[in-house]
């Protein structure tokens, strides 16, 4: 396979994690909005959402960091 | 907004179980198969419980009481529902949204009164029961939790009727089926916030007690103790 294709596939696998992080974020935002609409457990929803969103973003961030640094330093001479 | 509550006078209750039957036919509660019933899956929103036996034989009396959903003011079932399938509405009724329930049964596990029942199996009713379905109440599919709703469909009908007649709801416009049926008028029903209503007076009676009051669920179904 061409390196270009492989790189794209790798990017796609990485993007799964971002899709997860973003969908978790959207989900929690939705839940907070719903909680606000029905005026029910707004504060609890907000705090739990902030906590959860942070974790998922950090995880995605770490993975991206690894991905990009590996590619960046791949051609470096030992 | 009224806050509906119920007071059951155990002094009057004759353990005839008419409320149980009335509830069953009014709310189309599933009649489960023989196997299921014998394996603890019978479904009753209203149930006669024998709490304990008082005294020694032969001066012994069972303490029986009809137990429906307590319609708690601080319901523990609502807290744990992950999908808002059970909620407390503006008149204080803890209602169920059957199409939203995912059937996790967390509310059943957390109800200290064990009032919630689950549709374990497909709803297959005898023909004669199907013909007698109450058209006002939906028939629940398998896999959802259900419980007494204070016959909330009757509230909807009564309030719409009142609206059509351009008047406010009056006490007695809306009573659940068990209240209507009780042969000895042991169950009184009405607005707890209305200090003049019978149910509110009775709920403040010295004989009044609530089941598992110590848990802080603040039941809106209270009982009047039977006294000699």
């Amino acid at each position, binding site marked *: 396979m061409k390196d270009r294709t492989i790189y794209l596939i790798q990017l796609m696998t990485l993007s799964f994690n971002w899709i997860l992080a973003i969908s978790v974020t959207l989900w929690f935002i939705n839940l907070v909005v719903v909680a606000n609409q029905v005026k029910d457990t707004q504060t609890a929803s907000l705090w739990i959402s902030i906590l959860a969103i942070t974790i998922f973003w950090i995880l995605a961030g770490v993975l991206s960091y690894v991905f990009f640094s590996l590619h960046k330093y791949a051609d470096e001479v030992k | 907004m009224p806050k509906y509550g119920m007071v059951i006078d155990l*002094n*009057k209750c*004759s*353990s*005839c*179980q*008419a409320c*149980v*039957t*009335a509830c*069953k*036919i*009014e709310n189309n509660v599933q*009649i*489960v198969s*023989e196997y299921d*019933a*014998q394996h*603890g899956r*019978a479904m*009753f929103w209203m*149930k*006669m*419980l*024998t709490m304990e*036996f008082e005294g020694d*034989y*032969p*001066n*012994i*009396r*069972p303490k*029986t009481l009809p137990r429906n959903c307590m319609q708690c003011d601080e319901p523990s079932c609502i807290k744990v529902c992950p999908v808002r399938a059970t909620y407390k509405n503006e008149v204080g009724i803890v209602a169920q949204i059957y199409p939203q329930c995912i059937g996790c049964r967390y509310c059943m596990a957390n109800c200290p009164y064990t009032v919630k029942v689950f549709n374990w199996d497909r709803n297959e*009713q*005898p*023909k*004669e*029961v199907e*013909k*007698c*379905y*109450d*058209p006002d109440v939906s028939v629940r599919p398998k896999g959802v939790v259900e419980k007494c709703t204070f016959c909330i469909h009757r509230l909807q009908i009564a309030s719409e009727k009142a609206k059509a007649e351009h008047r406010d709801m009056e006490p007695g416009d809306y009573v659940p*089926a068990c209240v*209507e*049926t*009780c*042969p*000895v*008028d042991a169950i009184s029903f009405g607005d707890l916030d209305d200090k003049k209503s019978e149910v509110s007076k009775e709920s403040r009676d010295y004989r009044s007690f609530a089941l598992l009051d110590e848990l802080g669920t603040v039941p809106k179904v209270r009982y009047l103790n039977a006294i*000699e």
Partner: protein
Amino acid sequence: MEMNRRDFAKLLGGSLIGFAVGGAGDALLKIPGMVVPLLYSGPHVETWKVTTCAKCPGKCGLRVRMIDKFPVQAFGNPLSPMNKGGICPMGLTSVENLYHPDRLTSPMKKVNGRFQEISYAEAYGILTNALSSNGKGKAAFVAQTDSAFMGGLIKQLMAGLESEKVVVDNFASSSSMPFDRAAADHPDFIDFESCDYIVNFGSQLTEISESPLYFSRSMNDFRAKRNEFSTFSPKLTPDAYKANRWVPVSPEFYVDVALGLAYVILTDGTYDKTFVGNEFKDFDGFKKLVMENYSPAAVESRTGVASKYLIETARKFANASAPVAYFDESILYSSSGMRNAYAVVALNALKGFAGYGKLKDRELPDFENKKENESPQSSWNSRMLIGDKDIKILMIYRSNFVFNSPGQDDLRKAISDIPMVISFSPFIDETSELADLIIPDHDDLEKLDAFSSTVTGAPVISTQQPVVKPFYSTVHTGDVIVSLIADLKLSKNWSCKKYEDYLQSYLKPVYKHGKGMLMNQQKPTGLEKSLHQAGWQMASYSSFDEFWQQMLKHGGWWDPFPQTSKYKPAVSLTVDHLTANGRGDQPGKNARGNSLKLNIFHRNFDYRGNMLRNPVLTEQFGMDKDVYYETWIEINPATAKRLSVGDRTKVKVKTGKGAFEAFVIYNPAVVPANIDVPFGLGHTASKKVYGVNPMQYSDAVFDEETGKPSLSETEVKIV
């Protein structure tokens, strides 16, 4: 499944057509007008119709909820003086019987042991042929109805057929029969206004009685007035929960207990001396009998009832101003049945029947005729079928007597020996399955009938109107009998063509009488009462037809302000009544011995073994014990431990008639010497049999005078 190409094409075509009709039918195809009613499910208009529940002797008013002319639910009629809006489980589920798939849809004839559908004309032809050729003097009739009118009609038919062999099982008349025989008259009601003490001998007032709902309310009021009541019964049933004292005693000892109470009253001298002196004919003989045999100590040794309870109860009874020693039909269910009842009548007589009331207003023809129709009952009963070779024709109306009595094999054999058995049951039950011809009756909701009652202290006539047209080719049994009487010319001056005419002939005097009101408003106020007494009428009708129509529409007629009096009959009770035939009177003998006894009890879900085909009731039958679709036994934990029987386990219960499996429930209120078992399950004629019928395992012990079975004298073992 194999499928070739042609099949597939067919299937495809079929589904295409289905799609065209179903999916696009409305828009693309113009549906012909004729088909529309078939597809259209109706506007769902809700209406309510009023009728009367006939499931038990209670005569409760029913409000039936109709959606597009089909009943769906039934609730209590708040305007009925009997139930005032309340209703019991049986009434609530009465709609379900209407739609029951097991209902017979047309007359059936047994050919080579199998039932075949025939037309009504054919069935009626068979019936008239049989009766005209073989009828006179050779027919018997077993009926169970709480309608005095229907009972009267049946008796009229049998009188025309010159046969004494008729029994109309009617709770009210069975309950008043002992009074009629011992005192030549019976009380109409308990005078709850004056009554201040009740001793109850085994009747289940709030569950099975002449009006369970009326009694439930009255007993609550009675207790609210701080009045006391004691119950002597073999089981702590829900109505005994409320008793100030419940004394467990086996039904065959009611006679001892009642006479033991009498002993204390006689010794204390607290009885009504004037009444006894004037009306109690054989008082000296009675006194002698009691004083010799029924001292509390003697009673205690026989029955196990502590003498202190006897003395306490007797003194309370004697000191009350208007006490009632109450019994109803259920007192007869023991080997000493009628003697029990006579003893209680005698006990009442000692206080001059002070708590009982009588309707003064005897102008109402219905209540005149009630006596004629109901009592005195002929001395014939269904047990006498056994060994009776003279009976050639047996007719059975709604009585499932094979199911609800012991010794079923004998009965079955006796019935199958009769050449012609005609049943009017709307279902195949344990009795009608033995019939040669079944002409099914309507369901209660399709039927016209009327019931009269005085138990509330007011004359009440409740009407049962057909809320829905008959679904199937069933025939009102009343109509059959009316036309039988006409066609066979069994009665002179018979002008009735239908049961309706017959009913109207009874109710015309009520209309002419003019008093009372229809069940179309709440009980009148005090002002209206004064107006009423001053001669004002509340009638809203001007002709009999109008009266009749309105009566059907509103569910009945009643007189809220009747004239009443105390019940003060002449007592013709003799010592013979109490020592009937020298049988059973064996003072000093502990008849029960040490063995366990099977005590069959009734619940308010089934009255005489015909309700538990209803799925709702069947499921709920053992709900409070959490036993479903199976027979359970209740046992005292102490007894259970002695027999090493675990709670909520299955055991085999063995009697002389065989053994059955049952589910054990510990109940500390059960008499230690008894094993309580509920009656109702075990319908072997249904498609699905749940539980067992304890009657089948019960010894065939009967009260000889009435033929009622004993329910608590079978020895039982747990194996």
